[in-house]
């Protein structure tokens, strides 16, 4: 369960922080130029952070007692392959969901 005090602190902090990120250049820094290496690195925030955030849950899901679960692993692979190939987030989600729910039925478990 989530602690409600913590929840509101996170909400406020994340809200203010996210707003300041959005406001930064648009609102204040205007025409100041960012160093090239920083612009480069920022381009890779999403591809670096998002998969790392879920990688442990893919390999050792808590719902399966921390053991690698073939259905979850296969679903993750299907999501990545379809998303990469078709360049579509929705197609990837559908593929991952189908494998997650259908594979255990096919394997008869």
């Amino acid at each position: 369960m989530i602690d409600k005090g913590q929840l509101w602190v996170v909400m406020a902090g994340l809200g203010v922080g996210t707003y300041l990120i959005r406001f930064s250049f648009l609102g204040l820094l205007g025409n100041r130029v960012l160093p090239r290496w920083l612009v480069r690195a920022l381009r890779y925030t999403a591809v670096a952070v998002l998969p790392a955030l879920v990688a442990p849950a893919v390999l050792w899901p808590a719902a399966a007692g921390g053991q690698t679960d073939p259905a979850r692993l296969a679903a993750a692979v299907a999501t990545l392959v379809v998303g990469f190939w078709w360049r579509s987030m929705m197609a990837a989600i559908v593929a991952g969901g189908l494998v997650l729910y259908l594979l255990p039925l096919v394997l008869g478990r």
Partner: protein
Amino acid sequence: MTRPRSAFLRGMRDALPFIIVIVPFAMLFGLLATEAGLSRFEVGAFSVVVFAGASQFAALQLMQDQAPVLVVLATALAVNLRLLMYSVALAPHFGAAPLGLRAVMAYFLVDQSFAMSVAEFERRPAMSLPEKTAYFFGAVTPVVPMWLGSTMLGAVMGQAIPPEYALDFAVPITFLAMTAPMIRSAAHVAAAVVSVGLVLSLGFMPYGTGLLVAGAAGMGAGALVEAWTEARTEARAEARARRQERQA
């Protein structure tokens, strides 16, 4: 019809296809947040205050893992660092607008409004400031009510779905589905592989701090590979130019 007015309507129309993505994404947040024990009011407040889906999922998951507040904030804000890039990219277009207006635009700076605006301003470089502003707000007009409405719909559904239907794997699938279409170059692959490899081997670090190290290293790896690729392409182009000169 005035030109800003037609730009506003064009923005609205261009945003419609994004609804297919926003509705299920927002519903899933409402659903999972409710399953995690948040009240409807808290779910709605979360989506209004933060208004950045991926970071909301990240914060929710880390809070459920009992990570300390600072780690939750640092990680969720790291997910939102891409918005800094959007802010940089839009500044030259809106720099001349009044500060108050830019302050309002900042709140509505999301993946969709950014991507659509940049594409439109490239397509029509002659657009005036009022037209650009109108297009931007046109683009967010369908997105905002859909985002909030679907979050609340998900919250209501979450109360109806019994917790046995563990949706533990919905977030991993959603995040991987967001990432996969973004992988367009060796640099993207490097960023993802380095970051995932590190987060798995840094599991011993307390409170998910390994993730912050891994994310930073992944971003660095992406930037490095991009710099190498660029240097190599430039060197090749130069060699080709020299060869052509000699032949001429």
